[in-house]
């Protein structure tokens, strides 16, 4: 009997492994076929992506910069997903983070009597990041109120608020925060150097501060999800909010707190785009990273432990694919095709795996409780 059980569990592990590896192989194969269809060599393409991501310190820093924002929004999204909330508004929350992070730099730009050099840089940058968190939380709160108290699906609320955040940023850039040289809605004037998030070095232009923030966010959120009543309440709420309520979970508060955590982290990511990537506020500063975060979270099936690795791979592929246009005249969106196919196939594979196990009856009786 023990042998039978061991064989069964070994088989189950092998099947799980197959369902994990197959979508990766198939999505690589589909991408390779696409490349072959346009008369290019898939091996050359992968070589170029690798070089684009890791050929020197600057490109490596580029990967890290994308990774920082992606990992922050993905961690935030893990929290809302755990609570059963599809926070598609993360893109707008990031955008509001960028807008609020620009308040202090813009105050220095527009007020010549204020000299940023007269203030300690940690105070300015710290203040801007805190404001960005506030901006992200504010936008997330609006989605939360719409969802929790007015019953409006968070996907609809999120999409509307994403659009509103972008329109608001464009208004600021072409209105009150218009550069002196004239408004083209391309962005604000470059922020003073003292208001920017400092880089490690000009050869390795990324931020140690932000990497530390990412590490702290990862550790704290992992702890909160696995070790605290709050984390367990999120899970209960996400799986069955009616039962969670009867088990004593404050379902409204717990949902709102999930939005706040995600909003705060998206806000920080937004501040990085404004105060590091662009050195100014640009329209669409979030750059679709919020949506990419959704893909990361779907791919890892809400398991936070895999977020840094998957976010890093995504960042490397995206960052590296910029060389495709230069070297092969291939659009870098090939990387997005690869990622999109991968996520779709992983979801498909998860569904197929569950159905396979159901058919094999390795699950227990159905939910009626009767067998």
């Amino acid at each position, binding site marked *: 009997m023990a042998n039978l059980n061991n064989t069964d569990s070994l088989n189950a592990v092998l099947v799980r492994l197959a369902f994990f590896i197959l979508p990766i192989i198939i999505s690589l194969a589909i991408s390779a076929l696409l490349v072959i269809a346009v008369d290019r060599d898939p091996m050359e393409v992968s070589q170029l992506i690798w070089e684009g991501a890791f050929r020197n310190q600057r490109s490596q820093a580029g990967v890290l910069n994308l990774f920082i924002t992606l990992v922050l929004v993905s961690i935030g999204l893990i929290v809302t997903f755990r609570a059963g909330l599809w926070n598609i508004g993360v893109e707008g929350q990031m955008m509001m983070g960028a807008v609020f992070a620009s308040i202090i730099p813009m105050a220095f730009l527009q007020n010549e009597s204020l000299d940023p050099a007269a203030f300690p840089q940690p105070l300015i940058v710290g203040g801007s990041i805190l404001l960005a968190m506030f901006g992200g939380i504010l936008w997330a709160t609006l989605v939360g109120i719409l969802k929790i108290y007015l019953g409006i699906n968070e996907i609809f609320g999120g999409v509307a608020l994403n659009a509103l955040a972008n329109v608001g940023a464009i208004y600021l850039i072409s209105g009150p925060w218009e550069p002196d040289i004239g408004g083209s809605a391309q962005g604000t004037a470059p922020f003073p150097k003292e208001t920017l998030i400092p880089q490690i070095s000009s050869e390795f232009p990324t931020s140690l501060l932000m990497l530390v923030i990412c590490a702290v966010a990862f550790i704290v959120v992992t702890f909160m999800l696995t070790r605290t009543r709050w984390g367990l309440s999120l899970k209960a709420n996400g*799986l069955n909010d009616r039962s969670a309520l009867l088990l004593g979970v404050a379902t409204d508060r717990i949902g709102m707190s999930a939005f706040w955590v995600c909003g705060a982290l998206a806000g920080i990511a937004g501040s990085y785009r404004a105060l590091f990537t662009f050195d100014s506020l640009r329209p669409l500063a979030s750059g679709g990273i919020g949506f990419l975060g959704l893909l990361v979270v779907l791919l890892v099936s809400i398991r936070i432990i895999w977020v840094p690795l998957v976010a890093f791979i995504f960042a490397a592929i995206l960052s590296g694919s910029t060389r495709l246009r230069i070297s092969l005249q291939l659009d870098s969106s090939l990387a997005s095709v690869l990622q999109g196919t991968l996520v779709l196939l992983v979801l498909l594979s998860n569904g197929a795996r569950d159905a396979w196990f159901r058919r094999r009856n390795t699950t227990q009786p159905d939910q009626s409780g009767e067998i």
Partner: protein
Amino acid sequence: MNIELQNIHKYFGRVHANNDITITLNAGQIIGVLGENGAGKSTLMKILSGYQPADSGQILIDGQVMTYQGPRAAIKAGIGMLQQDPLDVGAFTVLENYMFQAEGGILPNRRAAYRELIAANERFGFELDPNALVENLSIAQRQQLEIVRLLSLGVKTLILDEPTTGISAEQKQALFDALRQLASEEQLIVLLVSHKLEDVITLCNSVFVLRNGELVGQQEMPATPAELVTMMFGEGLPPPERESAQIGDVTFRVEDVSIHDGRINMTGINLRIRAGEVIGLAGLEGSGQELFMRACVGLHRIHSGEVYVQDRRMTNRPYRQFMKHGVLFGAAGRVEEGLIAGMSLTEHMALSMDQKRVINWQTAQMRIQDQIAHYNIRGRATDNIEQLSGGNQQRVLMALLPEHPSVLVLEQPTRGLDVESARWIWQQLLARRKTGTGIIFSSAELDEVITYSDRILVFYAGRVHEIADASRTTLDELGHLIGGEFE
């Protein structure tokens, strides 16, 4: 039609739900299928009606091996199942539901279907208005519709799963008459899955008894309840003991409360519960009793009037506040409301045991293991709640309750449980009553309401009638009251 089930095996992971079951069913018989929760009777019926395949074994109909897959194919083969909650479409009319899945292509003959329905009404004494919306029908009428529909599809074997839950005495009589008529006149095989021994004794010609997935007995009727219980559990159960408890001060008050929802308006309801008192709520499904219970604990809005816990005003406060003051609610659907599919027993314990911010998983695990032993739960701390049978899920709910709640408000606390599990639940509840917990509960089983209540509130279409001394009422009187005969 004769059916043979030969050497049927079915596994769910480690659980051997049906173990080598061989039975023969002959035309014209009404057969009871008995067994405690988790005995495997639902699994066997689902295999027979095509809802799930057997792992091995075969089904023979009139000597031919059948290999149908899915309930539709089973119906074609002549076997149909009437679920406890009939599988109909609420937004359709009776006629549309009747014609659903019927032969006739994209333009079925509505007139012919209408005539068939009317003829069925006359034949069986049913009351089906072809133009009524199904969502407005009672459970009994929906059962009638499903029986008529299955018959029109040519079903020769009818499986009924707990058909008498939530229907009145008259409706039950009408159902039983129709089933007897079908068995004798049309030689139908009728299989009755039920926990209610009196139903089986009244209706069936013979019974099959399952225990732990195995067929442990077959018996021609008549048989006494004691004989059947012994076959089901291996030994006779002691009758429920009802000790008188000390009734204390008023702990919970409902004063002149009005509650509305889309279908029911209730006004001027008053109730006082004393420590140690048990109040049963009786009524047909949808008569307002469950709405009232939910309103009492902040889960449904009260339009006017007041609710007090001790002397604290709690009207329309969120449920969490009621919990804080020792008033706890248990819903009828355990996995839909109360327990969380996808979470383990340990996680349930961690969520319920205290309000500390950081969870001590070791303590949670130790505590649930203690409770598993104490409440004799068949499951492990790491099992997800949906892996447990209904009876064990109810035991988990009991295990999660705090030691001394002030008031328990319970929707059908023994719904779907076998006799033993139901008695066990009441043992636990009555033990809590001894320590001063007041209990309000609803039940579709009138004998349960009479047996365990000190007082009874009868609900009918939002109106409420109080029976001040439950021990002085009878099943017959209560049966008439739930039908609205208050005067």
